[in-house]
């Protein structure tokens, strides 16, 4: 009998360890900042750790206005649904991503491409502006310990919902993940305690 219990125990423990990745690592976790009331979505457990943070249109305006960019540029960027995007290579091997491969899927099921940093920078260059920072780089290879951040711009109005499909490649293999029910920041800061 003791032997049988030990066997059951061993199987349960084995099962628990198999369950760990499924429960802890599978989905992105939404958090609401107690300071700002804004939401963020973080996907952990993958080679590429991915975090999206809602950014208010007013904050976007302030960031670009403080850089001395013209009003037309400030207004255009802040008309987009902007997220702070933070990416980490959490493995001991290089990986790479390309924003051009990512898509956002609206409620009607339509898949849209994301406006890249190069497209923004090219538009600014046409206006004689050399500023090329703040947006998430188009593509990067992250070596061990590397990480990066920047704004991602989605062509939607404040408060809209969508699913974000992002991908990366490592060891010649592409991986794709989807974060469902992402919401653009509201027009104004949400009320919170």
């Amino acid at each position: 009998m003791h032997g049988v219990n030990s066997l059951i125990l061993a199987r349960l423990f084995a099962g628990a360890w198999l369950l760990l990745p499924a429960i802890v690592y599978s989905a992105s976790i939404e958090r609401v900042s107690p300071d700002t009331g804004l939401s963020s979505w973080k996907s952990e457990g993958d080679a590429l750790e991915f975090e999206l943070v809602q950014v208010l249109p007013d904050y976007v305006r302030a960031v670009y206005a403080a850089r001395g960019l013209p009003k037309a540029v400030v207004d255009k960027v802040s008309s987009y649904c902007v997220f702070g995007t933070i990416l980490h290579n959490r493995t001991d091997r290089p990986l790479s991503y390309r924003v051009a491969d990512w898509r956002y899927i609206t409620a009607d099921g339509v898949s849209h491409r994301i406006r890249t940093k190069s497209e923004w920078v090219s538009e600014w260059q046409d206006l004689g502006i050399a500023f090329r920072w703040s947006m998430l780089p188009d593509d990067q290879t992250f070596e061990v310990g590397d990480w990066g951040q920047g704004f991602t711009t989605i062509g939607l109005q404040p408060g809209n919902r969508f699913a974000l499909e992002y991908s990366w490649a490592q060891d010649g293999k592409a991986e794709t993940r989807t974060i469902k029910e992402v919401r653009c920041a509201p027009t104004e800061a949400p009320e919170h305690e």
Partner: protein
Amino acid sequence: MHQLKRLNMSKQIVLFIAMLLMLAATHVLADAEESDLGYQFSPVTPLIVAPDFTLEDMDGESYELHDYRGKVVLVNFWATWCPPCRKEMPALEALYRKLDGNSFAVLAINQWEDPDHVFAYTGELNVFPTFPILFDPESEISALYGVKGLPTSFLIDKKGRLAYRAVGGRAFDHPAVEQIIRVLLAKP
């Protein structure tokens, strides 16, 4: 009695598994929060000569990279509006103070901002940076170095070659960073 004993054991197993899961979840969250700034630098292969540059500091004094041949140089591309750049600045100063005089130099190359703004920012720091802060107003030098995002740092060896690169903020006061630099310093 036998059934009761089995029930108690099942409860204990469930409790134990729940504890394991909570422990694992706590570790994952703690790791994510604590490791915002990493410490790894990746070797640049093959070794290539670091692009030379001439840039000015806040006082208009010129600095030329080739003047640093024979020293190990940490080049840090940064801006005041970049949160990890701000976060790593105190540790960069600590590293500089610790290794200065050992043929080690730090050159912090600001992107896009004007000297007045940066001067005001450095005044807010608990410890004023004593290494040169240089200005790359049109981001030409960062483009030469292939910098895509801020902060990005490079370690240049005594022969003026790009030896290591780090993309994203780093805890410059981490012993592993100091060790890499000391190894470079020990080389001819």
